[in-house]
């Protein structure tokens, strides 16, 4: 307990005497975590969008205009017999027209001029399991025939987008690793400057019998504080970026197709904070160990 008291006093003293360098290390950690946080926020929201689209994925089959109404309803009922089908919605020409008119100003006159058959009736088929791409593909094949003029198989686009997201994740992992390594390098060198400033004291401590742990401990406390403060600042920064920048971007680009752009969930923020602390403490260990190995 007495040793801990000495260590704590030395850590606080070093923090005060090396305020500028400690602030620099904290800033580097905060900046690295903020960069990673912004990237993770973007990726988290993209994933959320894809998940919500995935749940809503369906096959849209557009009828030829000359297919009789009864035939259309028979086809709908036949599809409903398939256990892999959760729902089949028949959208008549009038409903399709109403849907479009409701969303696009002035389109009504254009549709009048184009005449009937511009917006064909359709069946919207939703799978029991939205991820069952095999079933969706099977229906897309089955529906090819004289009754339908076009089949819109949305899953294909989503799969392409998911592939893009996978590449984005890989790039993110690489970028994250690069940011972490760069931050570790910068923080380690900053802490090493603090160690260097105190080298005479540390050398004397070694000569009077201080153990490696005794010499390292105050730097670990400093690293812990740097990491914690860095994590706190980056979380505040992330919130500010979210409120000031992303929310405005969302308004400007009208991206609200899947609700509000979300802040990172709590567990991801905790992970960022832990990363900050590991970064601060890890850099201190590397810097002090480097010094200890160089002094007799």
């Amino acid at each position, binding site marked *: 307990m*007495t040793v801990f008291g000495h260590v704590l006093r030395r850590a606080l003293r070093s923090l005060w005497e090396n305020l500028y360098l400690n602030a620099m290390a904290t800033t580097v950690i905060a900046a690295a975590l903020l960069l990673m946080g912004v990237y993770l926020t973007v990726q988290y929201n993209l994933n959320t969008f894809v998940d919500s689209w995935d749940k809503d994925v369906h096959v849209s089959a557009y009828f030829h205009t000359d297919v009789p109404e009864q035939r259309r309803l028979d086809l709908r009922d036949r599809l409903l017999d398939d256990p892999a089908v959760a729902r089949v919605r028949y959208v008549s020409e009038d409903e399709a027209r109403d849907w479009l008119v409701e969303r696009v100003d002035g389109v009504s006159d254009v549709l009048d001029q184009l005449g009937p058959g511009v917006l064909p009736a359709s069946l919207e088929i939703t799978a029991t399991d939205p991820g069952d791409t095999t079933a969706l593909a099977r229906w897309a094949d089955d529906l090819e025939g004289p009754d339908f003029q076009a089949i819109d198989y949305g899953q294909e686009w989503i799969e392409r987008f998911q592939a893009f997201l996978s590449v984005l994740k890989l790039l993110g992992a690489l970028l994250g690793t690069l940011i972490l390594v760069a931050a570790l390098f910068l923080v380690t060198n900053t802490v090493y400057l603090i160690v260097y400033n105190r080298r005479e004291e540390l050398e004397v401590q070694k000569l009077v019998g201080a153990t490696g742990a005794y010499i390292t401990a105050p730097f670990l406390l400093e690293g812990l504080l740097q990491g914690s403060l860095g994590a706190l600042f980056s979380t505040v920064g992330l919130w500010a970026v979210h409120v000031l920048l992303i929310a405005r971007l969302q308004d400007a680009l009208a991206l609200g197709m899947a609700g509000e752009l979300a802040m990172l969930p709590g567990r991801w923020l905790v992970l960022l904070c832990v990363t900050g602390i590991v970064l601060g403490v890890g850099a201190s260990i590397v810097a002090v160990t480097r010094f200890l190995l160089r002094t*007799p």
Partner: protein
Amino acid sequence: MIRLYHVTKRYGDVHALQDINLHVAKGEFCYVTGPSGAGKSTMLKLLYGAVRPTSGKLLVGGVDVARLKRRELPGLRRNMGIVFQDFKLIDTRTVAENVSLSLEVIGTPRADIRRRVQAVLSIVGLRGRGDDRPQTLSGGEQQRVAVARAIVNDPSIVLADEPTGNLDGAMAIEVMEILQAINLRGTTVLVATHDHGLMQRFPYRTLRFRAGRLESA
């Protein structure tokens, strides 16, 4: 207290020490002397584990220093006091804080530290100077602070590497008198020096080195 058996230390092709055999008894006062490059400092460094012998066996208080692991060195050094020619005081700490370093590393409670630091500052004639910064003291006073730091934890051995090298005659005598007083309390003292005047004024056993060899013991 100190025993060397055929100890050799080489730095590359240079023989800093060659085939040294010697014995220093507990409570003895010895000079380690010789011209520059004779191996005096290397000899002391071997004793506090700053360098390892290339060959031979080196016992300090029964411990084979050459075989000590890095993490075991603090245990050895806690039983030693080391004094350097350049004092090695920390300018940003007060005199009392400099002296208390040796006690802090072994977890001595603060109240005990205060008491022992005051006592040892009295021994070296610096009572009342505990709150001063080292740079406000004279060279002799700074070396006395270094001696105080070396003896505050009652070590069984004090190693002093040219402790009077940066001091004028009167100050050098003051420091030597303190080392002598420490020795009279039973502490083994080894002083590396080439100041023949001091050796004549304070006559003790002399270990004379030349070109890495022990000429006379």
